[in-house]
């Protein structure tokens, strides 16, 4: 137990347990979605695509899916310029209250999501935009903005400022420096951040719960409402949509920046 073997056994036991708990729900959902039976059970009662078919014909599901995509696009489109500029601003420029500003920009992470959700509901209600769909996108952008700033900030940090100085020295004016040196260098960060923002918005549930009503319900809220009533296998089929999105997102992230980027020490 004290030798190299013992260490391997210990590590692999714990990590094996982690892998099983991390993956089990996902695998089970995929399995359950193909059941031919009327209720969720395991092992599934025969194989069929009937729940996918049902889903395809269910307007409420399709509408919720489109709404979720719409909200995620709004969130991402706002987050990219706002987050990228904020990241470049905080890293590259000498700011008087840098620390304070950084702490302030982390507010979305330090305020609990329930509180953010209800707070935004009150704000939106006050300006009479509650009940519309686009404010939900804005809200999701606000609560996840630190992810965007963090992703771009990492790229800005690894860009040597002398490159920008060199471009300026060679006669490039500020806008040109920004467009031809700074922006291309931080593009991987922008893509990573944009991807994160999109997927997180697509999955976001709690803040959406406060901002949508029955007319503009988004997909995660719809799933939640259904879980609380009757659990039918079509929910599993909906969840598979989410799993597919996650697979695509992980694949893209791996292709664009490489997942190994998260293994770096600081």
């Amino acid at each position, binding site marked *: 137990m004290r030798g190299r073997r013992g260490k391997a056994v210990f590590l692999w036991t*714990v990590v094996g347990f982690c892998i099983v708990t991390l993956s089990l729900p996902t695998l089970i959902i995929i399995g359950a979605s193909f059941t031919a039976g009327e209720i969720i*059970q395991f092992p599934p009662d025969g194989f069929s695509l009937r729940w996918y078919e049902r889903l395809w014909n269910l307007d409420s599901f399709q509408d919720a899916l489109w709404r979720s995509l719409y909200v995620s696009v709004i969130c991402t489109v706002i987050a990219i310029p706002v987050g990228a500029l904020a990241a470049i601003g905080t890293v590259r420029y000498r700011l008087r209250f840098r620390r304070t500003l950084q702490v302030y920009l982390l507010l979305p992470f330090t305020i609990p*999501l329930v*509180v953010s959700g209800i707070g935004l509901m*009150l704000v939106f209600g006050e300006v009479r935009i509650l009940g519309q769909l686009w404010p939900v996108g804005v809200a999701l952008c606000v609560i996840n903005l630190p992810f965007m700033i963090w992703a771009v900030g990492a790229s800005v940090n690894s860009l040597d400022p002398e490159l920008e100085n060199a471009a300026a020295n060679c006669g490039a004016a500020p806008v040109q420096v920004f467009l031809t040196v700074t922006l291309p260098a931080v593009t991987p960060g922008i893509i990573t951040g944009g991807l994160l923002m999109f997927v997180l918005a697509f999955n976001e*549930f709690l803040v959406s719960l406060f901002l949508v009503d029955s007319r503009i319900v988004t997909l995660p809220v719809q799933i939640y409402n259904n879980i609380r009533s009757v659990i039918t296998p079509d929910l599993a089929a909906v969840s598979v949509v989410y799993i597919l*999105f996650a697979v695509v*997102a992980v694949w893209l992230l791996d292709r664009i920046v490489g997942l190994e980027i998260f*293994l770096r020490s*600081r």
Partner: protein
Amino acid sequence: MARAGRQSYPLTWRLLDIAERAARLVWPRRWKRQVGYLMLTPAVLLVGLLAIGLGYMAEYSLHELDLSTYRLVEEYSLVNYQTIVDRPVYLRVFWRTLLAAILVTLFALALAFPYAYLMVRTSSARMRKFLLIALFLPFFIGQVVRAYGWLIVLGSEGLINTALGALGLPRLDLIYNYPSVIFGLTQYMLPFAVLMMVPAVAAIGEEVELASEGLGANWMQTFRHVVLPLARPGFIGAGIVVFTLSLTDFAMPEILGGGTSDFIASSIYDSFFQISNFGLGAAIAMVLVGIGSVLAAAMFILVGTGTLGMTGGGRDTGR
């Protein structure tokens, strides 16, 4: 810039010139030092929405609900906060949430460290990729879907109970109780914990471990006296993130607890939408914000920020 050759300029140059001139018009050169503030403005305004929302909540929390009109009264008072202290149910919810957050943090840290360690140390690139994917896939699948997956696994007709039934064993009530909420939350927090742990583990040189082993320590002693102390920033960073996220969670206790294990967030929700007492709900929310901030600040002061330490502060370019 000679005016003569202008027509032979490529289009992009001319566009850039226009852009430069427009930029200078909107933001004159002498304000150059303030460009940084300009860049931050949109983000500051956007986050300002949250600050305003928090302000509303603070305001609401100071008004009592008038039960005859179901509106908040004009006068300021601390009645709502008094109600929280007086009613034992809220105290119970607070303790339940706090205990859950502590337990989830302990479990998540205990699982995250070996995961991060193995992922950083493994010599096989393929293995590393597999561990990364196993981590990121659930990270990108929302909480609701993951909780739903656990309902299928642990539910009365679920995987485990069916297996037990097939073996002729009695069925177990595995969901709608406190342990299932703890379990679901731990699983939910694991990717966060590992990602916060990794930078600290990656910063530990392998030669330090080899040196320790070369001096005769077995791996447990090396872990105990060398690796774990060096990984401290990871434990701190991961601990703070997991603790604050668990403390404020809503979906897991709602879905896996099924009303038996409400957290503070559920109480806030119920005050707003079940009993329509905005004042009381806002007061509970303020207490939650207070507890979270005080505990996080205490951690920062006592043990530092660990891997949470801000990365953006990096280089000052002197512009």
